[in-house]
């Protein structure tokens, strides 16, 4: 704990009169940190002396005398760990826990004692275990329906201590077995006396269920419902519950005349449970009619809220609820007196027509909103707030909305205990609303107490808090803080507790941290790289202040990549600093001809800043430098001297990114759009002069549940200037492959020389996908891709766009879908293949 935090919590600052009340409160605040055993505040003339004694920490934990239980097992039973502050109560609780566990494991005489050997700052805790003589199993006696399989489920053997946990495990396994076999009413009992375990197994009856008279519903649906009930027991009450549930299922499907008769037949170890079902006719709602006194209203809004809507099965059980739903709907429209006074059901050829006769009454409007505010606190502002509701349609919901607005307003101003009572009167079809408001005392923020952070620095958390001492208390600020702290990714739980002291409120933040380090690895298969793997090591709480480091290695037959990225999310205010070192070694090949186009080894580094301009909109500025070596280049794809040998590129890149997708791995709605421009120039030490600009615009729309339409437009252009005539092959654009135009193999679209793709300086591409859920995490995707690459801007010709269509299968995983796509060329050239198949992970866009 820093001196700064200590004095802040103690509320002691220089040149301020000392208040005994404040000091006393300060001591209590400091104690909440669970660090101190004593704090003494002394005054000597004008000098204040603070003396403290910390609770010692636990330096090591030892076990003595344990013969049959190893230290690792015992350590798991403790309530504390090394580094915690010493608390005698926790030692007692742990001793009890060990004793109880050992007792259950067959050592009923076990005794546990502990002692502590403490220096000034730390303690060694020693537990002395006296296990005692175990209860040894001398014989296992089986009674009842002994079965070899069931006997095999018992992991206890003769000669071993009588371990009750193993007996409990045996009972559980037997019950699971009986349930799977459809056997009910079994009993499993055991006792232990003088070294003998007596196990009495009584196998119950096997239940055979049959449905007679089922024609229109699926037997599987009935069985599924039944299985939820058939667990350990079967008695009259359970049969009644099953029958009622079956009736409800039939009602739900339009069988309002359903009759079900359960019959139970017992034979030895068999129960035949037969449900004789008289389904009756299935009735479908043809239409519903609403007959109002005066008004006319669109039926489609009503249809959305009722169960018995047109074309759905007639559900007699829901008819009364539907009446209530319609009445509530009308009341929400201001028809305060709305009532359905008659419901007629007309049936013809199993088609149902329902006529609801409605007396809607007059639509009520708000005439006045009267405010009675204690001490008239902020009356003018509340008046302004409620003014907009005058003459609005009156509903119970609107009354609650106004009340919520008033409470919200006062709470934001520091009146945390505001009390608002409301009532209304309706006269001559007009509503008169009355609010009686008692704002209570205004409360102010006092101190913030940070607890539970072991790795994260307290100072870092203080810097992330928005509320300020002595400012009016506002619970909404605390929620914003909580959200902002969660966004750091450091915490799994943040409890915010208010501690009131007169008109001031201390805020206690109690944190639970997530492990800051992670290690991930994986293997995959891509049509281009074949087998590939990756390994990632990350730590997101460097120095306890949320600085982050990620290192990643990717390996495949044709590629080796590694990178180290360092991120400081709190570089300055909300400015994020990022820097990275990267290495890549790859062989780029023409997947069609299997020819190696070139081999590349590149070292690169970047450093830059990211700033969030709006909630979903951010800007990035990076400096990038790369040193590449290209060799073994196929002569056909050489466009200039710079395609061969070593090259240094240095420049700045600016990016603007908008992203409001609901889920980056599997978006259902939202936009992802970006524009980036990279300027490489001799001024920055680069051997090449160019300006590369690219953009992407992706939109995701959920048309229906489980059906997503995704569309994307992407493009890029490299403008060369100065002495640069051509981009080296590693900087040129290529299209074709799993994420671009899927009818073509990886990087094979665009300008070619002797059938080898050379890449180009301009590309344009569009993609459309219809992603349909098949259930159980499977999706089918229909797509249409279009795009091409050209050498120069002047060569761009939309009529030369290449179109491909296809279908793909996806399996959803937490890191994006595993996919296989089949792309088919729509304007195939002579000599080109008809189609391509791609395997990979993640959506194409």
């Amino acid at each position, binding site marked *: 704990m820093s001196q700064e935090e200590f004095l802040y919590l103690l509320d002691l600052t220089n040149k301020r009169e000392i208040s005994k009340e404040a000091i006393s409160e300060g001591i209590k605040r400091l104690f909440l940190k*669970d*660090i101190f055993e004593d*704090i003494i505040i*002394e005054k*000597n003339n004008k000098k204040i002396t*603070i003396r403290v004694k910390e609770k010692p920490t636990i330096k090591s934990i030892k076990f003595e005398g344990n013969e049959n239980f190893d230290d690792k097992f015992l350590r798991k039973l403790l309530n504390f760990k090394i580094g915690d502050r010493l608390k005698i109560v926790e030692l007692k609780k742990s001793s009890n826990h060990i004793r109880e566990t050992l007792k259950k494991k067959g050592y009923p005489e076990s005794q546990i004692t502990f002692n502590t050997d403490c220096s000034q700052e730390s303690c060694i805790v020693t537990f002395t275990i006296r296990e005692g003589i175990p209860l040894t199993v001398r014989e296992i006696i089986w009674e009842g329906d002994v079965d070899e399989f069931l006997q095999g489920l018992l992991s206890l053997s003769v000669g071993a201590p009588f371990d009750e946990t193993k007996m409990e495990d045996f009972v559980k396994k037997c019950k699971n077995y009986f349930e799977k076999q459809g056997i009910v009413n079994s009993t499993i009992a055991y006792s232990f006396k003088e070294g003998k375990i007596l196990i009495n197994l009584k196998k119950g009856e096997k239940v055979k269920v049959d449905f007679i008279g089922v024609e229109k519903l699926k037997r599987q649906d009935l069985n599924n419902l039944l299985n939820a009930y058939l667990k350990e027991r079967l008695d009259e009450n359970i049969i009644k519950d099953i029958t009622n549930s079956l009736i409800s299922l039939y009602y739900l499907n339009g069988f309002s005349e359903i009759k079900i008769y359960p019959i139970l037949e017992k034979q030895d170890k068999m129960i035949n449970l037969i449900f004789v079902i008289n389904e009756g006719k299935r009735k479908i709602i043809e239409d519903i009619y609403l007959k109002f006194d005066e008004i006319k209203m669109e039926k489609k809004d009503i249809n959305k809220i009722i169960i018995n809507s047109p074309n759905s099965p007639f559900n007699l059980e829901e008819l009364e609820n539907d009446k209530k739903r319609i009445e509530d709907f009308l009341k929400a429209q201001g028809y305060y007196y709305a009532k359905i006074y008659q419901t007629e059901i007309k049936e013809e050829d199993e088609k149902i027509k329902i006529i609801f006769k409605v007396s809607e009454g007059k639509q009520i409007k708000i005439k006045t909103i009267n405010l009675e505010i204690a001490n008239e606190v902020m009356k003018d502002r509340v008046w302004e707030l409620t003014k907009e509701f005058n003459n609005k349609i009156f509903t119970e919901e609107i009354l609650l909305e106004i009340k919520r607005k008033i409470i919200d307003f006062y709470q934001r101003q520091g009146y945390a205990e505001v009390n608002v009572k409301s009532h209304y009167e309706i006269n001559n079809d007009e509503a008169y609303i009355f609010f009686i408001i008692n704002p209570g005392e205004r409360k102010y923020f006092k101190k913030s107490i940070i607890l539970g952070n072991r790795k994260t620095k307290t100072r870092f958390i203080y810097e992330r808090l928005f509320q300020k001492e002595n400012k009016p208390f506002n619970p909404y600020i605390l929620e914003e803080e909580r959200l902002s702290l969660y966004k750091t990714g450091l915490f799994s739980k943040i409890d915010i507790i208010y501690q009131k002291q007169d008109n001031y409120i201390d805020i206690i933040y109690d944190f639970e941290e997530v492990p800051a380090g992670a290690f991930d690895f994986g293997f995959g298969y891509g049509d281009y790289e074949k087998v590939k793997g990756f390994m990632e090591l990350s730590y997101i709480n460097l120095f306890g202040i949320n600085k982050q480091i990620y290192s990643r290695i990717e390996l495949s037959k044709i590629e080796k990549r590694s990178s180290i990225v360092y991120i400081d999310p709190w570089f300055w205010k909300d400015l994020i600093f990022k820097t990275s070192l990267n290495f890549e070694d790859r062989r780029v090949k023409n997947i069609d001809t299997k020819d190696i186009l070139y081999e590349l080894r590149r070292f690169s580094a970047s450093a830059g800043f990211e700033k969030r301009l709006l909630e979903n909109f951010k800007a990035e500025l990076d400096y990038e430098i790369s040193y590449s070596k290209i060799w073994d280049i196929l002569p056909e794809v050489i466009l200039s001297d710079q395609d061969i040998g070593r090259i240094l590129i240095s420049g700045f890149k600016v990016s603007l990114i908008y992203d409001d997708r609901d889920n980056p791995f599997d978006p259902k709605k939202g936009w992802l759009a970006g524009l980036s421009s990279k300027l490489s120039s001799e001024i920055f030490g680069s051997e090449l002069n160019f300006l590369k600009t690219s953009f992407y615009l992706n939109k995701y729309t959920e048309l229906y549940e489980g059906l997503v339409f995704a569309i994307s437009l992407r493009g890029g252009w490299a403008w060369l200037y100065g002495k640069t005539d051509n981009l080296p092959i590693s900087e040129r654009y290529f299209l074709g492959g799993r994420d671009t135009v899927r009818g073509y193999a990886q990087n094979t679209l665009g300008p070619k020389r002797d059938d080898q793709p050379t890449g180009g300086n301009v590309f344009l591409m569009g993609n459309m996908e219809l992603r349909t859920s098949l259930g159980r995490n499977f999706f089918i995707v229909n797509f249409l891709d279009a795009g091409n690459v050209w050498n120069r801007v002047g060569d761009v010709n939309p009529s030369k766009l290449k179109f491909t269509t296809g279908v793909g299968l996806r399996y959803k995983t937490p890191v994006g879908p595993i996919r296989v796509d089949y792309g088919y060329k729509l304007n195939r050239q002579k000599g080109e293949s008809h189609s391509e198949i791609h395997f990979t992970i993640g959506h194409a866009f």
Partner: protein
Amino acid sequence: MLFNIICLPICSGEIIDRVVAYVDDQAITIKDFLEFRAKIKEKLPNISSNEIIELMINRKLLLKESKKIFLEGDEEEAIKNYIDLKIKSKIFITDDKIREYYEQNKHQFGEKPFLSIRDEIETYLFERELNKKLIEHIKELRELAEIKIIFLPFGDY
């Protein structure tokens, strides 16, 4: 910790405040002690400092538990509500027990008929049971808490 100094039993200057005892992460300061002592001495003039501290510890334990259920209200209210909910609501004095007590202690009641003192006996038995249960409950709470008396104030302290 920058202030890792062991406090001497006798400090040289005037003590503004210090910790008298703690219950888990809740400190009881001299200021709290003096205020509570002044109040309690009005009702129990012969109560010792040790008894006062024990009483304060018990109150802290009950308050801590009560705040888990009753978020609103002051300390007294919270403790009262907690005792009502957790202890009083579970005490039932049956008619048989009242009559049994009456029969066993008939000599104390003289000629008074049962019905005339029934309520009085019921209140007495209820209070007796409440005390017993409260003591048991506090004992349970004390076993689950880290309690330490650091310094026992005497005289002005």
